[in-house]
């Protein structure tokens, strides 16, 4: 009872703060500061037609590298914990609908994921969503069968290789232009064509492979039964 009242008071106080603060936030119609630079110069500087990807991969490439490291730590700990203490869920036979869907849909889903990664500098998408879509195709294949995934050593190798390539692509910029993860080591090309935007497509590919293999190994770890 006391806890509920305390919670209610907390919610009311937070609500009062929100009501007091929100009307004072000013949203200016014009873009200024670094946002203005991105929107006016971004396409010439990076050659990427998709400015969101330009900011994520080119201007803020180092932040993305940090994000990839965080995701690596998270998935590694999940896989480690689940291999020590397996969930050992009962794997029932998939129903007719699930079994047939898992035969039909993975190929189009994989294609969508590859498209999202390959066209990250042209249309909405990118390494993270593309990798997640590819991993969901893997998930569907796994749900359609009764088998239990074995060793995910190959997945771990692919993941490590992708992470290493990200770093090496960054050092390419150091060797050539004296700046880590410089996007311009390859030349921008014409914005809007498939081969353009310098390093962005390569980094998207690497991120996509890494995210796909990480999420797949997490999914496999949830099905893992323990023992060898």
């Amino acid at each position, binding site marked *: 009872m006391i806890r509920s009242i305390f919670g209610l008071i907390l919610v009311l106080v937070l609500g009062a703060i929100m009501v007091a603060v929100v009307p004072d936030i000013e949203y200016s119609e014009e873009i200024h500061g670094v946002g203005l630079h991105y929107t006016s110069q971004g396409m010439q500087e990076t050659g990427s037609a*998709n400015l969101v990807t330009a900011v994520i991969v080119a201007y803020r490439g180092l932040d993305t590298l940090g994000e990839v490291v965080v995701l690596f730590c998270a998935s590694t700990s999940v896989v480690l914990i689940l291999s020590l203490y397996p*969930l050992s869920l009962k794997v029932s036979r998939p129903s007719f609908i699930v079994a047939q869907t898992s035969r039909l849909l993975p190929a189009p889903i994989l294609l969508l994921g590859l498209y999202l990664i390959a066209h990250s500098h042209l249309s909405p998408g990118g390494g993270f*969503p593309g990798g*997640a879509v590819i*991993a*969901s195709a893997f998930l569907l294949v796994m749900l359609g069968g009764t088998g239990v995934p074995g060793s995910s050593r190959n997945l771990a190798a692919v993941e490590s290789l992708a992470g290493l390539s990200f770093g090496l692509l960054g050092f390419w910029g150091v060797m050539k232009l004296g700046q880590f993860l410089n996007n311009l080591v390859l030349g921008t090309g014409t914005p809007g064509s498939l081969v353009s935007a310098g390093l962005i497509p390569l980094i998207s590919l690497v991120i996509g492979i890494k995210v796909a293999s990480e*999420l797949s190994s997490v999914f496999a770890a949830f099905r893992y039964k323990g023992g060898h």
Partner: protein
Amino acid sequence: MSDALFPVVAITMGIMMLAAGIVALYVRRLLSAIIIVAFVSLSASVLFLLMDATDVAVTEAAVGAVVSTMIFLWGRGKIGGDR
């Protein structure tokens, strides 16, 4: 989406998401709660799409609606169904 219609659709979807969130808290079956949370995720993705944040919409649909729902379902399997 026309400019006049956008606030109506956005506010309707926001109210629907709020209602679904409250229902997910009080619904008896855990499975229903998980599916309702997935619905909230998917609605958020549609809202992002309406606000022209297509990159975010794609990520929300892939991660919020598929991956997290699946992990919730496995967690439900571990604690032994609906209790």
